[in-house]
């Protein structure tokens, strides 16, 4: 078979951002608090909110939730066409004793309805909502263990898991052989694990005051794949070998440090306040590096692509929330958070859309009491995130698409069943 050239696009992700849990919360209880919960001592949500919470819990808890977020975002006065975010979440926290030790184990799992993971690449000049396009569409797996130091302090460690894509890549043979056409392929793709560590501390300073601290590492989905192609197509002028090397990072979640406190103002009223620092400045290039090695007899008028780092800023996210036991069976919650955008003004070649966000949320829990030997509780929450309108005036009048503008509203809710036994 003569040697020739053919190629195909390979997996190339672009920059990614937060997980759906980080953006929208894990369960209705923390969604209603606008994401605050590092000092709440939530046993079921411990793996995501504070790994230390479970060891100080009094009973195991299992929660199953379903949530939906509608992304009503616009770019240049037109709908951005983003997919809604919806899926099922399960969370389990089990405090237990082993001899003299008070321990806890917890796990949280979020499974999107449509896609476990969305990998997307767009040309760097194309406008896209970097925090919301494909990057809130992924599975989340968190697990943690904790140990109590006495009756008021606990420590916890955990991890959040994702994967990379690597391996020898994809190979093609395309062309002609006696009596038949040839189009064959081979794959060697690995999905190695990546994990970001999480450490948590919970301190019950008194019966009315609790402090919480959580630190987590950065997490991302990295792709390193090659496409090797060999083809001979008589009459097409294509003959040769080609290698396209693709390297990139997607679903980047920055390292963060969160500190908070919960105060029992009265026996029925509690308030949470917390502040989270996110290290977006470490975010890698938002587009992939493409390397080309092509020999097809004529040189293709193409260049290898490389886009520089995005220059994201570190941000600080404040959250406040209140919780009121309205009756013996009903608890009401409300919360507010402000998330500044880490994306600098897009006045150059790239068009990464994102703006500051104000979030308001509210929810309720209804305790149904004992049923089949377990205590059941229904939780529900609604949230609204307002993206502050922004405008980026391009330095070059020839910039593809022109000046970048954007705004929008994100509306959503979540409901769950929680079981304690």
């Amino acid at each position: 078979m003569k040697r020739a050239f053919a190629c195909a696009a390979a997996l190339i992700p672009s920059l990614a951002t937060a997980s759906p849990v980080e953006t929208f919360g894990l369960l209705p209880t923390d969604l209603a608090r606008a994401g605050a919960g590092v000092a709440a001592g939530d046993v079921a949500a411990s793996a995501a909110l504070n790994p230390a919470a479970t060891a100080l819990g009094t009973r195991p808890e299992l929660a199953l939730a379903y949530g939906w977020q509608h992304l009503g975002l616009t770019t240049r006065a037109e709908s951005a066409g983003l997919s809604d975010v919806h899926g099922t979440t399960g969370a389990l926290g089990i405090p237990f004793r082993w001899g003299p030790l008070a321990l806890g184990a917890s796990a949280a799992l979020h499974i999107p309805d449509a896609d476990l993971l969305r990998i997307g690449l767009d040309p760097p000049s194309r406008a896209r909502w970097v925090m919301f396009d494909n990057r809130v569409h992924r599975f989340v797996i968190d697990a943690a263990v904790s140990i109590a130091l006495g009756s008021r302090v606990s420590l916890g460690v955990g991890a959040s898991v994702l994967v990379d894509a690597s391996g020898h890549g994809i190979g093609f043979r395309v062309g002609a052989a006696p009596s038949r056409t040839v189009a064959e392929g081979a794959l060697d793709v690995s999905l190695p694990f990546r994990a970001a560590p999480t450490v948590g501390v919970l301190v019950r300073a008194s019966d009315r005051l609790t402090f919480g601290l959580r630190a987590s590492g950065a997490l991302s989905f990295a792709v390193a794949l090659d496409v090797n192609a060999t083809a001979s197509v008589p009459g097409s002028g294509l003959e040769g070998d080609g290698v396209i090397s693709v390297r990139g990072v997607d679903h980047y979640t920055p390292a963060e440090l969160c500190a908070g406190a919960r105060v029992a103002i009265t026996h029925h009223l509690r308030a949470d306040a917390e502040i989270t620092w996110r290290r977006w400045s470490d975010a890698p290039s938002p587009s992939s590096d493409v390397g080309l090695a092509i020999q097809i007899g004529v040189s293709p008028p193409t260049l290898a692509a490389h886009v520089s780092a995005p220059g994201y800023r570190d941000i600080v996210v404040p959250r406040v929330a209140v919780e009121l036991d309205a009756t013996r069976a009903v608890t009401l919650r409300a919360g507010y958070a402000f998330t500044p955008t880490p994306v600098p003004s897009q006045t150059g070649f790239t068009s990464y859309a994102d703006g500051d966000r104000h979030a308001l949320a509210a929810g309720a829990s209804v305790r149904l009491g004992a049923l089949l030997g377990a205590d059941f509780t229904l939780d529900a929450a609604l949230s609204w995130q307002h993206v502050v309108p922004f405008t980026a005036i391009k330095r070059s009048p020839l910039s593809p698409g022109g000046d970048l503008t954007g705004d929008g509203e994100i509306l959503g809710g979540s409901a769950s069943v929680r079981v304690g036994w």
Partner: protein
Amino acid sequence: MSLALLASLLASPGSAWASHPDLYGLGAESIAHAGAGVADLSSMGAVFTNPAGIAFAERSSLSLGLNYTASALSANGQTHALPDPVGVTAGAVIRFGGGSWIARSVTLGLGAYVLPNTLAHLTTGYPDEPVFAYYEGRTERLALLPAIALRPHPRVSLGVALNLFAGLSGPASATDGPARAVELTLSQQVRARAALILGVRLAATDHWSFGITWRQRFSVPYATDTHNRVGGVPLDISVAAEGLATPDELVFGARWRGPRLGLMADVGYARWSAWSGPAVQVRARISGLELTPLSPAPNATDAFSMRVAGDWRHRAMTFRGGLGVETAIVGEQSGRTNLIDSTRLIVGLGAAYALPPAWGVRTQLVLGAQMHYLAPTTLTKRIGSPDEAARDPRVLADEDASVMGVQTRNPGYPSITGSGAVFALSLAWEVTL
């Protein structure tokens, strides 16, 4: 349950993603029993063997084990190693405390096989590459099996488990951008896939139990449609692949258990004839020229298996062993493909040691080992003209009739002989709560 998983349960086309438990069983106890246990197993391994079995667990338990797999397979003198030999098995059986209906009737289970560094490793070679079809490219993935069992009557239980994983698909394009750089646009979705494992178990008497398990074939494809224009040349390529196949399986089992001795037997059927093969399907259009060759058929055949096993308890020790035989999953390979398999003999051995209780918690160490022996099999090629090869996938073409002798690059010409053995070892620590 997510809507995508529900949809995949209702319609699951194509072939499947196998895993380590599909070949050897889940956990050291199942490995030692040569994979038998449909009517016996009640520990974590039952979530794969027969989910109904976990309802017969007396207490909750946790299990954590280390697995190692080694290959002594060879074809025409070339060894075929199995990648990713090390894996971790973990799982739990959860009984609810108290005297409620839930506590008496409902049991939860979870089993997992995890590669230590990798979620999955998908390898699919070119169609003519020699492959031990039952073993290569079938176990290198995470296996996650949540299960629930219901015991409406003390002697009857029903169980269901989900075999969870994912597939990848989506469009892509590559064009010359405004800065003369290649601009790639790609949208790939990793979608959840699930298959059912259904089981029933009947404790007919205090000594005799019977069980049935059905495992659904599991389809997890990789598919990408690419549309490219590079150097002014239009080039469209569509790729589809299905690796790590598992067919529909039905297994019947019976068990007799006395105070110390237990004996069990399983008979199974696996519908391999519906398997489309491991090859990557490629369709290409280059400058308007269509390249859509026929994919070589794997000549897969249904497989039957029989396994017998037993265990004997003496004080703190339990000794286990098992024997099994399974027919080949592919027939003659006289054409382009070189899928190697033959009747396999399965031998399992193992033991468990109950450690002294610590802080009121009972633990035990469990060891299991299993060997698969493949009898030698020879695949002989049938040479024909290019026209004959174009019509009949069982014929290999002489690629240049103008030269004396047969001209072919197929590595299986004139014949290929494969045989060997595969070994699986598992050491686990189990905690009874």
